[in-house]
């Protein structure tokens, strides 16, 4: 039995990652290696939703990408949302698959609904509204989802047409809970992009979360109006004004020519007192959803197919708010904005080693920082920042590089921190060029060629790549005919960079 093995005294040496962690490790591959991101299918204030394909299984999924640098919300809150999602499994909701971290973003992988949201359909259907029997179908499915959710003592908090999703086959699923809903409901942000038209009065009146699952029922009532008329009530009014007015005014009513079961259903949902508002189970037996002639009509397949054709015809594309390719830790750039001088004190006074005496270095105390920056991946290289090639100003703030050059890595084994972290300890100071050469550093191969390869990778157009390649060949030839030329070149570039940097540091203070 498992217990017998686990109750051993635990003070024996703790091996952090036993063999059992391998599976987790495999899963911590970067999501972009596991999924092919396709087009953007939705956007929210905190992230965009993409269609994506699981490279291994070929399954289509939806991935919500939330830029964590942009949200000031605690990661803890977002984690709670993920736990919330992971506790739900039902056919009436878009099921959660898993979450990754890539760069500064969270990738939340969910079941994909190819038909888009009901708000999408409203927008593209020629009539911009649904007939009553279709609305009855949608609402019945949503209520099944809510019944499940509420039985788990959970609240959706953001019921509206945009969060009712439709599969390729026209089936309805409740989606987008938690992650965006919770953040929106807290009203903390100044960039309040969501609209409060669907909010229950008790949510607005009592901000300390003093509401329960009945709040979803109110929002459902507003959603019925939205589906039948194309808009929630007061949609033309200023959202903040509407927000303040919801608790004060009488509940909105359905305007126009509709059947009395529809009106009655809405009126029940929009009961101001949450206590006397009916729950999901009660509403499921309401006449509006159960008219004999409407039974069996189901699914929005026709609407989904129609809208797909219309979208293709109008060449409709959603533009994401954030680009997936925009990374904070872009490859090729330093992961830090400033490099520090962590050289050991005694080193300050040693000026006798070959390199310095030969080259008459001006500022020995900056040397180690400079050496850290030997691999010439300047952030403002002429390739990726061709337009802003103002050589003088960027230097002051740019530490330019980080010693991630693979050939230099093995010099930093003594301490546990990564080289890429920039922690170099005093030993960087020992990295005199002579030592480097002793350890087999080849200036041409490890610095020049390496740099050209990086520049080649960063080059955006084929033309640039061609030029870079030509230049590399020229260098190769030059080094062959004049061995040592690379070394001289690197030294000169390095010395010059130091001079410029020191100049800027001095003059800018």
């Amino acid at each position, binding site marked *: 039995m498992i217990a017998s093995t686990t109750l051993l005294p*635990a003070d024996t040496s703790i091996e952090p990652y036993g063999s059992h962690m391998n599976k987790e490790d495999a899963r911590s591959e970067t999501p972009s290696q596991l999924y092919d991101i396709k087009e953007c299918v939705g956007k929210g204030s905190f992230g965009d939703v993409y269609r994506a394909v699981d490279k291994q299984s070929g399954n289509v999924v939806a991935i919500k990408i939330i830029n964590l640098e942009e949200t000031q919300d605690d990661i*803890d809150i977002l984690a709670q949302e*993920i736990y919330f999602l*992971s506790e739900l499994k039902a056919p009436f909701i878009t099921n959660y698959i898993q979450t990754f971290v890539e760069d500064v973003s969270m990738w939340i992988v969910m079941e994909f609904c190819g038909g888009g949201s009901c708000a999408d359909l409203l927008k593209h259907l020629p009539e911009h509204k649904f007939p009553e029997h279709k609305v009855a179908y949608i609402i019945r499915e949503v209520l099944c989802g809510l019944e499940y959710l509420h039985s788990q003592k959970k609240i959706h908090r953001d019921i509206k047409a945009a969060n009712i999703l439709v599969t390729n086959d026209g089936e309805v699923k409740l989606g987008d809970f938690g992650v965006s809903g919770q953040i929106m409901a807290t009203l903390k942000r100044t960039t309040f992009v969501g609209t409060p038209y669907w909010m229950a009065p008790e949510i607005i009146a009592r901000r300390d979360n003093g509401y329960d699952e009945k709040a979803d029922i109110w929002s459902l009532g507003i959603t019925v109006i939205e589906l039948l008329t194309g808009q929630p009530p007061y949609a033309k009014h200023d959202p903040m004004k509407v927000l303040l007015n919801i608790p004060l005014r009488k509940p909105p009513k359905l305007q126009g020519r509709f059947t009395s079961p529809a009106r009655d259903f809405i009126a029940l949902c929009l009961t101001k007192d949450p206590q006397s508002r009916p729950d999901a189970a009660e509403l499921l037996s309401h006449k509006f959803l159960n008219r004999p002639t409407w039974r069996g009509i189901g699914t929005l397949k026709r609407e989904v197919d129609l809208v797909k054709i219309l979208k293709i015809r109008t060449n409709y594309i959603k533009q994401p708010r954030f680009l997936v390719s925009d990374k904070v830790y872009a490859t090729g750039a330093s992961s830090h904005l400033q490099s520090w001088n962590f050289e050991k004190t005694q080193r300050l006074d040693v000026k006798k080693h070959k390199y310095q005496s030969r080259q008459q270095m001006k500022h020995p*105390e900056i040397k180690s920082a400079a050496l850290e920056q030997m691999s010439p991946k300047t952030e403002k290289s002429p390739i990726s920042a061709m337009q802003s090639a103002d050589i003088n100003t960027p230097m002051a703030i740019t530490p330019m590089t980080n010693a991630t050059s693979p050939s230099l890595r093995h010099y930093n084994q003594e301490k546990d921190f990564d080289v890429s972290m920039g922690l170099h300890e005093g030993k960087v100071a020992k990295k005199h060029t002579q030592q480097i050469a002793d350890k087999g550093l080849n200036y041409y191969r490890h610095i020049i060629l390496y740099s050209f390869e990086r520049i080649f990778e960063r080059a955006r157009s084929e033309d640039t790549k061609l030029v870079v390649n030509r230049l590399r060949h020229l260098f190769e030839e030059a080094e062959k005919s004049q061995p040592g030329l690379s070394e001289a070149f690197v030294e000169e570039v390095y010395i010059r960079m130091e001079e410029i940097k020191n100049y800027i540091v001095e003059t800018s203070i």
Partner: protein
Amino acid sequence: MAFWWKKTPKTASDYAKLLSEQLNKFENATTIDSRRKVQDDCSKYLTGTKHFLLGEVEPEPTPEAVDELYGAIYQLDILRDLLVNLPELEFEARKDVALIFATCLRHSRDNKFVTVDYLVTRPNVVALMLRTPELALSKPNSSDLFLKAGFIILEALKYEQLCRIMLRDPQIWLFFDFAKGGSFEVSTESFQILTNLFTIHQKPVATEFFSQPINLQKFIDKINKLMAHGNYVTKRQSVKLLHSLIMIRSYNHLLTAYINSPDNLKLIMILLSDRSKNLQLGSFNIFKVFVANPRKSKPILDIMVKNRDKLLHYLMSFNTDSKDATFLDEKEYVVQEIESLPRLVSPNSDPSLGTSP
């Protein structure tokens, strides 16, 4: 509640007996079919027990009946069996287990937490609690299992006696590793456990945990590794955890040890210059403590002096669009402190460079 019982429980303790019987069948359920059957039965009895404990059955159980059930749960070692068999149970049943644990822990009579007192006499169950997340990682659906097992620990950490037992268990160090190496759920849940372990009951943490130099050093090593090597989320979470701990007054052992090591200062300075704004701000909150320390050690001073100009230059453009008054005050203070450091004059500096670039 509509669920049927194979054997109808006649008394309250029957719930526990039937559940215990089923849980112990997993051991011998070797075929897929027999396992499925045990799973199904466990799910039923778990739901039944949960509803009984929560008083959600008709007629509502008397306090005596509820006490009888708790008594049977303790006597039959059900909590241990639930932990051992958690990975065997199905999705909804695991949620019930988590809820049953939370309900049991909350259970009190005569101002005493009965289950907590019981667990204090059964330290092996508490030890098992701490080991269940680790076991979960070797199972399918590891993230979900880990969350359930973690939830049970989080519930237990609400009670000081249980927190103290856990603080003495070396198993807690593993959660630093889980925080770094696991899936998003595993990582964030581990942080939650560490945060609650070290922040809810501050007295035992201060007097029994951080008072020991060996714990102090190990803690600093572990949290540094997370801040240095973790992914973006891990770095942010660990910076935040460290900051919240060194701000707790009674943890002055930790604060002093942390801000006197030059290696720690280096790490924090590197994070200060990270490309992520959130990490910059998080580490600034720790950096300022190094700066504010009136008795800086020589190695700390050396680093600051050597980087005086760089720091001033960097801080000049640091988070300039912030309107947070506290932050602005603190930044001004930090800048003043650094400005008052002696300026390192380089003997060889060449004035001709001034006109150069």
